[in-house]
């Protein structure tokens, strides 16, 4: 079995990265050839006792050479920095129409959940040519979400959220690897990213077992865990109304503002006394330890679903409870076992 020399290129970022990589490789090869070539030529030509000319160097040569190659390396390195940095800056901003996928990592598996509630373990189905945004958190130690074919890697931290995005350009099945050492079965923390044509993706999605979407789960949790007791309109407790606050500035005690984004909501749930909304008493207890990361994500999705325009809030009530356990998913995907057969693409469409 002869290996390939370059990994598969299956995302927009992969193209950019490869371009820089190849450019750097060529530059390095030239420099390396220059250095090794000079060493060989000098060593042989000026080997001990050879008849080569050894007149002393003119004094000026040494200084000008030093300055010359110092300047040349500085120029080269600054150029590479500029090239790499501009590629990186372009990759910072997530396209607004990106599909959002939540990823929760734990020893030693990946749990992913699309915004419509489709849950997977160690697998991730995405459509081709659509930007996908990953919102990730870990339940235990630091992991790292790595898809070599996408040149995508981002650490997944406990009790913090990290984000990354990609846009796949090829259909197929690609490795999902954990690259931050996370304990015994670190090497077994493998998964697959399955990139599908949009139609196939849509049909795969519809074939998924009926699951709560995140916002509905969040709505249920909102009342089950007692959030609604205070935050619902008409509650006896004086607590801020959460409808329409998503991504809008919130006026805090002490005169500053915060944006009601995922991080803010998470902080408000776990450390409610830290940023108190102006005009309210710091009476909310912390939910640290009472809500896990997945549940916080669900509640965040619910608050998000309440919109970013001030609207009248829906009547709180227990929504219909549906099963959210996807049937038939094996605990670990076959990709975990080295050498296991990889599902065909067409099979992947409806295998579940």
């Amino acid at each position, binding site marked *: 079995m002869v290996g390939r020399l370059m990994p598969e290129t299956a995302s927009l970022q992969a193209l950019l990265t490869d371009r820089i990589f190849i450019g*750097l490789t060529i530059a390095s090869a030239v420099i390396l050839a220059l250095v090794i070539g000079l060493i060989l030529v000098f060593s042989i030509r000026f*080997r*001990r006792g050879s008849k080569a000319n*050894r007149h002393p160097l003119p004094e000026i040569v040494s200084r000008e050479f030093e300055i010359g190659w110092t300047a040349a390396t500085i120029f080269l390195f600054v150029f590479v920095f500029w090239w790499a*940095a501009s590629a*990186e800056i372009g990759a910072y901003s997530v396209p607004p129409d990106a599909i959002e996928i939540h990823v929760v990592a734990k020893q030693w598996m990946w749990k992913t959940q699309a915004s419509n509630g489709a849950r997977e373990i160690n697998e991730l189905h995405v459509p081709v040519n659509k930007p996908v945004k990953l919102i990730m958190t870990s339940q235990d130690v*630091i992991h790292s979400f790595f898809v070599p074919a996408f040149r995508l890697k981002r650490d997944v931290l*406990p009790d913090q959220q990290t984000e990354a995005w990609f846009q796949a350009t090829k259909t197929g099945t690609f490795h999902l690897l954990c690259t931050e050492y996370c304990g015994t079965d670190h090497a077994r923390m493998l998964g697959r990213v399955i990139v599908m044509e949009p139609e196939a993706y849509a049909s795969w999605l519809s074939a998924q077992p009926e699951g709560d979407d995140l916002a509905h789960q969040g709505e249920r949790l909102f009342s089950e865990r007692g959030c609604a007791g205070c935050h619902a309109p008409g509650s006896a407790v004086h607590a801020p109304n959460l409808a329409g606050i998503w991504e809008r500035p919130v006026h805090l005690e002490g005169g500053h503002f915060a944006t009601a984004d995922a991080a803010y909501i998470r902080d408000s749930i776990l450390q409610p006394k830290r940023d108190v909304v102006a005009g309210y008493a710091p009476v909310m207890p912390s939910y640290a330890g009472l809500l896990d990361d997945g549940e916080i994500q669900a509640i965040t999705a619910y608050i998000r679903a309440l919109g970013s325009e001030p609207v009248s809030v829906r009547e709180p009530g227990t929504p219909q409870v549906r099963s959210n356990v996807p049937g038939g998913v094996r605990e670990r995907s076959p990709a975990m076992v080295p050498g296991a057969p990889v599902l065909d693409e067409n099979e992947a469409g409806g295998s579940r």
Partner: protein
Amino acid sequence: MSTTASPTGLADPDELDLRLPVSYLADGHSVRSWLLTTDHKRIAILYAVTITLFFFIGGAAATLVRLELATPEADLLRADTYNKLFTLHGVVMVWFFLIPSIPNTLGNFLVPLMIGARDVAFPKLNLISWYLNVGGGSLAVAALLLGGVDTGWTFYVPYSTVFSNTWVSLTVLGVFTTGFSSIATGVNFIATIHLLRAPGMTWFRLPLFVWAMYTTSLMFVLATPVLAVTLLLVFAERTFGLPIFDPARGGDPILFQHLFWFYSHPAVYIMVLPAMGVVSELITCFARRKVFGYSFMVYALVAIAVIGFFTWGHHMFTSGMSPYAALVFSFLSFVVAVPSAIKVFNWTGTLYRGQVGFESPMLYALGFVGLFTLGGLTGLFLASIPVDVHVQDTYFVVAHFHYIMVGASVSAYFGGLHFWWPKITGRTYPETWARFAAILMFFGFNLTFFPQFIAGYLGMPRRYHAYPPEFQIWNVLSSAGAAVLAVAYLMPLGYLTWSLLFGERATNNPWDASGLEWRTTSPPPRQNFFGSPRIQGGPYNYHPEGVAPVHDQPRLPSRGSLT
């Protein structure tokens, strides 16, 4: 170095040390005379013995790791065993072999000799430093015997503080202890080089090896305490439950990484700066030329030592660090590559119009330049954020840092060991064997680590005991190379031991080298010199200023008549 002194001051380079005062080796034969010595040369030997031991412990772990990786399945070792082995390999090799390797053996032996001093500034502190190193190493080995550690040498939180149930605390304590050994060595060298230079030994007459030890010592003193604190925090969190980094209570694991890499990135320079110093000595001696651009070489060393402190963030581009900070760190990482490039060009330039010989130390030195260049160039890949994001924590990184820390530093260590072996032991070694080992090491090394660049770019993560099968070809190549490399590392152990017992007596200056350390007997007496050296010229006086080096020139200055 041209020197003059009282007529008895300098030993005749060709004279054996038969009738001269007793050498430092013969100055007492009891165990006590070794374990309680304050002689910098004996302490260097003590270090050499312990780091050799640690080198083979770490090497054994690496061998098992490479054996396991020959196949994609986990068939030799269990996951936990593998994790403990690579951790052991990392911890032992970094802190108990590489960091003390050149500074504490060659550095301890040579710095006072090269500057014309009797000893280091604080001889007792020097001995304490060895005991701290051995104490720390014993704790780490004890942790190994008790069951091992599985956190990786990086001890990332919260895995190391909350989740690992192996002997983390003991290991951390061992590394913490050896950190103070580094600090003691650093303080000692800095004070020695500042205060004990012989008359006439100005800063710009210092051999580059001494400059390298000086800059390394700066890093010892300024970086190591941060590691000590970081590990202390891990220790406190594990042992006493003081939650400094605990994310569940609002702590920040990324902060740990900042502190860790504030030490551990400069630590790479702690390993490679001494190697640069050694190689500068070797190349000048075997090219019979003054070093090309001495002052630029000095500035480059200082620049690396200072800028090296600004670049640690490139280990953290994927960690969730702020993207703005990442850009700053990326830029600074490119900047630190400039002085390294200057050094490579200057070594190459030194060969030009020289009288190049290919004795074994020179083979190691030339190998160093090639491996260091490749290692340094791949560093540029890691400084470019998009590429780094892809190769971070893959075998690309593993290959890169092995090129620098093993390819370059260990080559230089072996080169220096061979070069100064006659001075240290007073014996010669079999040159043919030595050349063969040097060449074997170079090819074995490249065979081991070059395939890892490819595996890494293909996406093989590090710290995997089982891996997807498409990476197997590269791992098989790498494991085959490791076997060659193991043989190449064992060979010097064999023939150098032979040389100790049966080697011919060495002359005082077998290489016709110009440094002050060659102006005393081999091995030197306890007092280092007979009389007091006075320095009247710059280093690397292999040919008079403005005159081309000729084949048999070097004999002249070494007699001390040419000034």
